């Protein structure tokens, strides 16, 4: 520090460290350098911001990847962002899939059923309902639609307890259906599907289909549905991640560990591992988390194209 100031002091222009503040009054006459510097500044600024955001999202992931490769001792003995002394990823993985008679695979399969099949059906219902709201005329349509919007407003977590109380009456507590059935209802998907339908399915096409003798159902299945493919993928991904991440509903609804989705199972391992002297469960939760994010990443990469086109659709109209 002291060296640079003594060096720059005899210089005729302002000292180097002060460039930012001085550049405004002095650099008024030559226009282009100023423009360039501000453009450069905003560019670096934006890049730096994006870099920070990337770090913010990637650092936990890095910790997860590195920690999964560590032995139990290294997990505590080494820095979280440095590799461990032993490479124990494969030991950890085989332990993960074997522990408790392979309960982890069971949890993964449950999650695929809850989130995968659940979201698929929810999307079919949403698209059909959204399409109906957009294209068909029936009494009380707008009133019904405001009901749907009401459903959009209520956050999912707030619904967990009422759903649980209803499920208790229906005898669905601690069953597969207790978590699966609520996942089939997706009001935001209905709303999205209506917007998509208005944007993607021209009325003329449906007119033509009807003229050619197609019934309403056939027109929807054969003509409208394929046109709504990007909507389908978008809604599917939305609902899939929502069910995948839903925690409180399975927490209250399920107590049989064979029905747990993977996030609840990991939480059971994590929550009592360290306080009860079972650090191996802590490591299991770490490795299990890594394995459980993999399907999500694959799914997003596969469906990225549709997802992107879906995000901007309707923006112009």
């Amino acid at each position: 520090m002291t060296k640079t100031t003594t060096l720059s002091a005899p210089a005729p222009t302002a000292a180097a460290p002060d460039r930012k503040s001085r550049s405004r009054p002095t650099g008024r006459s030559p226009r282009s350098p100023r423009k360039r510097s501000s453009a450069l500044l905003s560019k670096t600024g934006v890049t730096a911001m994006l870099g920070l955001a990337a770090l913010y999202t990637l650092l936990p992931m890095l910790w997860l990847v590195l920690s999964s490769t560590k032995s139990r001792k290294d997990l505590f003995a080494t820095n979280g962002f440095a590799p461990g002394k032993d490479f124990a990823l494969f030991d950890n993985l085989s332990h993960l899939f074997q522990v408790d008679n392979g309960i982890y695979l069971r949890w993964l399969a449950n999650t695929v059923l809850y989130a995968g099949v659940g979201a698929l059906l929810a999307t079919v219902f949403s698209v059909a309902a959204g399409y109906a709201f957009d294209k068909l005329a029936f009494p009380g349509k707008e009133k019904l639609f405001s009901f749907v919007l009401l459903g959009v407003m209520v956050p999912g977590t707030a619904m967990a307890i009422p759903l649980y109380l209803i499920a208790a009456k229906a005898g669905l507590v601690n069953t597969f259906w207790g978590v699966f059935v609520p996942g089939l209802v997706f009001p935001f998907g209905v709303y999205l599907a209506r917007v998509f339908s208005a944007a993607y399915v021209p009325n003329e096409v449906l007119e033509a289909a009807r003229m050619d003798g197609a019934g309403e159902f056939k027109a929807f299945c054969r003509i409208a549905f394929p046109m709504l493919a990007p909507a389908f993928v978008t809604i599917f991904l939305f609902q899939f991640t929502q069910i995948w991440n839903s925690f409180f509903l399975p927490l209250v609804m399920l107590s049989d560990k064979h029905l747990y989705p993977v996030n609840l199972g990991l939480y059971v391992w994590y929550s009592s591992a360290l306080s009860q002297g079972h650090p191996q469960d802590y490591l299991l939760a770490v490795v299990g988390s890594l394995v459980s994010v993999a399907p999500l990443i694959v799914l997003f990469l596969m469906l990225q194209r549709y997802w992107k086109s879906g995000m901007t659709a309707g923006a112009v109209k």
Partner: protein
Amino acid sequence: MFRRRLTAMVCSVAALGLLATGCGGTDNGGSAAEKKTGEVTFWSFVKGSDKVAEAFNRTHPDIKVNFETVPSGQEYYSKLSNAVKAGTVPDVAVVEYPQLPEFATQGKLESLDGTLGPLVDKRFPQSTRKLVQLGGKTWGVPRDAAPLMLYYRNDFFKTHKIDVPKTWAEYRNMTERVKKADPKARGGVLYTDNPGLLSALTWQAGSQWFSTKKDAWKVSLDDAPSRKVADFWGDLARKDLVSSLSSLDPFWTSVQQNRTVAYVCASWCAGAQQATVADQKGKWAVAPVPTWDGKPASAMYGGSSFVVPKGAKNSGAAAEFIKWITTDPVGMKAWVSSGTSSMFPADPELVPVTKSAFPTDYFGGQDVYAVGSKSYDAVVPGWTWGPVMGTTNTAIIDQLPKVAEGNVKLSDVLTGAQKATVKDIQHRGMTLAP
């Protein structure tokens, strides 16, 4: 053996006015309590629960216990609470001591007076009974006690000629010497995410955060002993003589990396220490927890009890199961069959059972249970947990990390928690003592 007609004591809520909502449900407990057969659903997050259920099923052909693993922490208590609301409760559930009054005052537990009350009176010391009895009734049966001890690195203390502290003044001295001996090492920890140890230390100093007078709750989180403890630990944390860490992996990382060479914890920490930092075998030792005046005094950090939630369908068989897993030597043995638990039974008669199952080599052959027994005997009687511990704990945890930074005084954290607790008790319609 301890059968008494439940119907005779049908919800005598009047007698325990401090139970805000009391029990409104139907009372078909009379016949259910008599029956000691059938299926029992059992919720627990305590390690070894699966083994205990298996062992019970082997020895009790008339009762079938179905064990279900649940997560621990606040999530579990909201799950249990909602299960009572919906009428889908298990027959037996684990509840830690701090949470028990909250469930009892909200009428979410079956009273055990007609079944296990006499057993609790007979088998457990008064300080522990006080944790499961409220308003003159018994609401749970203690499984383990968690008396405080001091854990320290024998090798480190020997090399640097540091004495094991007997009083808190000596403890402070010890933390200074540890830091001088190794600038990275600390002689203690103030947890940033867990108020349990702090409350135990105030309990040991003679504080009584909660007490009941007739129908009313008295809350005194910031009474004189409590402030003394808070000032002591707040100062240690601010001067960086003890580290300020989360009790989860940051704490164990610090132990593994030789940065924590002494800490106060309960009996169960011995098992956790042995399993989590296995390679420091032989380096650790335990000592009685330091006291203010040098005379033995202790308290509990943790511990759990078993309850029968309101609406349980098979409370008779449930009581039979609870009795076996808390007071039967065979049942107690099943808890520690894995050999990794240093659980300290709340029933003093069963200490030999758990002691024989816990290997002593990690602590260099030292009799950890003897230290535990002395500590258990010295637990200051009279401590009761409060009716809104969720609120109390949250109010403390929110502020705890700021103590080491010097922005907040630890005694002010307790004053803040006092206000939050009083407010929530009023909000829930319970009475406060003037």
